[in-house]
């Protein structure tokens, strides 16, 4: 395996090779890992981890987290079971991580194995001395709030256990797509985005850059506990590759049209080009990044690879302080928003819960609930459903308005509630210091 990689990139790597192992955890994780195996992660070893013995995979090395109790039937979407099973196999996992420098964990959070086993896997890998990066996707909003909650919890656990977590909320990937795209296609799109991101990090580590980004820098960016990180990897080729590259960055759904950059505290940029990569190109790209992220600490890396002649690739990882999620999951709009047959989901993911909303059951309840607050899109959808033709309530040129949720001031200021706040460099000193500094008391 290693010799293969040496052949592929002789110019950019030298001496010591990083041994990378990619773990696909859970059904979704394995699906992603299978795709990764065929898309240029040469030199990496792949391992599939699942509780479901019946699932088929093309990955050679497998760890079955099965016990007799479950008769190889999976975890039933329960992360606690997944966690328990993984703990039972802790030693086995640890052994499989021996002699590995970097472990990638690829998983879709929200289900049983992905959410439950990934943190344990991360711990086992850390225990065997490897660095751990997790590439995970969060479920679509329509997958129900139980999965969302499980995913969020698992994400918190992972952040504690890993050196770095790259997280892709599927809902964001959805924005990239046409609204009428098929259900399966939207999952494929999110998988593609995740793989792109993993590819960016992979290159960053594998190719010895001219301006190098150390792994430590990467993990500090990714480990930011009070923040959210988003990432984008884009590639462009041809004469106008710089313009094309910048255009793609601006349009990238995960960066919210560079809005994510503006809010970010740290931005890591890695540029990869062929031997013909000019200083002018690098300058132009970095200038744009600096313009859009004026407040951020920018970490820049550059590498040259022989196989990239005439091409240019760029990976951006931006970390911003955690804010209130801009778009709240719509409260039970499932009744009106059409969900394309949940059966498809079961086929695809294997672990999707049956959707909680059952319109028929609702109708018989004597209590008439107030109509849920609907946004413009939902209203359009309802009207178009009833009339049978597409409706546009919004004027064509009107910008898409988004209501921002203001942060909830939960901290009571006690006796200083009514007095003039003591503001020092933007900080309200009346709030307890330990809260402002995020010191946990337990």
């Amino acid at each position: 395996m290693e010799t293969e990689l040496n052949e592929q990139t002789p110019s950019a790597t030298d001496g010591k090779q990083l041994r990378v192992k990619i773990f696909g955890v859970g059904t979704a994780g394995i699906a992603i890992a299978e795709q990764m195996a065929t898309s240029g992660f040469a030199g990496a070893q792949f391992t599939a981890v699942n509780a479901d013995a019946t699932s088929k995979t093309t990955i050679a090395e497998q760890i079955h987290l099965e016990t007799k109790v479950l008769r190889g039937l999976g975890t039933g979407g329960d992360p606690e079971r997944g966690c328990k099973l993984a703990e039972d196999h802790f030693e086995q996992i640890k052994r499989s991580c021996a002699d590995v420098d970097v472990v990638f964990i690829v998983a879709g959070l929200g289900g049983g194995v992905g959410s439950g086993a990934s943190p344990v896997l991360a711990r086992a890998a850390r225990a065997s001395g490897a660095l751990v990066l997790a590439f995970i996707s969060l479920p679509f909003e329509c997958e129900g709030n139980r999965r969302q909650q499980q995913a969020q919890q698992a994400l918190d656990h992972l952040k504690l256990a890993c050196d770095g977590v790259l997280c892709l909320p599927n809902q964001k990937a959805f924005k990239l797509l046409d609204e009428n795209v098929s259900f399966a296609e939207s999952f494929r799109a999110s998988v593609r985005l995740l793989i792109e991101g993993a590819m960016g990090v992979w290159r960053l580590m594998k190719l010895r850059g001219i301006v190098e980004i150390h792994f430590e820098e990467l993990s500090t960016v990714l480990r930011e506990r009070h923040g959210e990180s988003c990432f984008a990897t884009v590639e462009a080729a041809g004469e106008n590759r710089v313009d094309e590259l910048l255009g793609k960055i601006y349009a990238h759904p995960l960066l919210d049209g560079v809005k994510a950059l503006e809010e970010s505290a740290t931005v890591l940029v890695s540029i990869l080009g062929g031997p013909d990569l000019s200083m002018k190109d690098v300058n132009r790209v970095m200038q744009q990044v600096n313009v859009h992220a004026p407040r951020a600490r920018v970490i820049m890396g550059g590498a040259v690879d022989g196989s990239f002649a005439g091409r240019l690739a760029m990976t951006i990882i931006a970390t911003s302080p955690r804010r209130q999620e801009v778009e709240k999951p719509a409260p039970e709009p499932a009744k009106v928003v059409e969900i394309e047959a949940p059966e498809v989901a079961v086929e695809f993911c294997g672990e999707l819960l049956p959707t909680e909303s059952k319109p028929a059951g609702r109708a018989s309840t004597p209590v008439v609930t107030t109509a849920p607050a609907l946004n413009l899109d939902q209203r359009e959808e309802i009207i178009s459903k009833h009339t049978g033709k597409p409706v546009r309530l919004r004027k064509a040129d009107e910008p898409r308005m988004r209501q921002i949720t203001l942060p909830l001031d939960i901290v009571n200021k006690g006796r200083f509630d009514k007095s003039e706040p003591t503001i020092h460099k933007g900080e309200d000193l009346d709030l307890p210091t330990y809260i402002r500094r995020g010191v946990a008391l337990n």
Partner: protein
Amino acid sequence: MVGLEIGTSKVCVVVGEMNDEGALNIIGVGQSKSRGVRKGEIVDTRAVEEDVRHALTEAEHMADVEVRSVYLGVSGGHIRGFNNRGVHPVVSADREISDFDVQDVVKNAKAINLPQDNTVVHAIRQHFLVDGQDGVKNPVGMLGARLEVDVHVIHGHLNRLQNAIRVVKGMQLEVEEVVFSGLASSLAVLTPTEKELGALVIDMGGGTTNYVVYSGGVIKHSGVIAVGGDHVTNDLAFGLKVPQSRADQLKIENGNALLNESIAGEKMKITSDLGLPLNTINISHLRRIMSLRLEETFQLIAQDVEQAGLLDYIRAGVFLCGGGSRVPEVTRLAEQILQLPVCIGRTTNISGLSSSMDKPELATAIGLVRFASFKTRQRDARPSFTQNFKTFFGKLIPR
């Protein structure tokens, strides 16, 4: 001479007298809990009036005097200090600097561009410069073409200062002068040697933390952070989920500025006033909350003093006073952050009731009396017109 401090946690009156040699003697102290002050500023006039009355009566009894006028200590987040330089060309033919030149240059230095609502509380003379030569203490009689002076100006919001004055005046008391509390505290705890060497005085009050930096015998920097012991109490009440009064008690009984490994996991049951169990608190949480707040306060001061470029000039060390300095091990915490020797400021060079001298929380009020004694001495040194008149005629008329 009477000093009155209307603090956030207590109202304090100190009565002093000067003996024939000009030495100061404290003869009466009166204290009362303060209820109408938040962060050093009055929010409830009625309550303040009552509290001042209490403290005043106590002090009057102890000293056996009737108080007519006071020196009033003020504080609050609105008070700021900065340095300003005044310039004056010496115009006399022989280039000798006269008293009038000195008066003029000080007047120029005091002419500052302040926000409209603000007023100068103090303009303290630092050093004179004669033709650019620094460090001149008294330029009268020297020769030079250009006289400059540095003053440290402490200013505050006029209306908020007036509020305190009005309350006192409403009680048929005269306010001789308004004094910045931090300045008063520094007068109480520092000796001339320490002022010369360079010292930082931090007055850790209930609602505000005032600090003053001395170097070369003069005030170089001053500031107020509207964070004090009240904030510690409030943090504790929030973090430990206990009532404010209870948090205050916990702070006093179990407080410590440093985290200690030995207390990790130690629990304490607390009961309500009726003896019913309220809840169990973790002592290490209490310490951590306190420690973080105090640490932050010191850090803010350290940043500010550092910015003023004075951290290296503090050679006599840091002096803590006010109620906050009573927290165990607060000096060690301050040492860690400021990287300077820290001690509790003691009012040493004033005679009188020694029991009250030892209390760091009385430093401000004692300092006010000290300020008063300086003023009186100045006034005596410059005899007024009537006194001149008397002495003149006294010489003429044989007794």
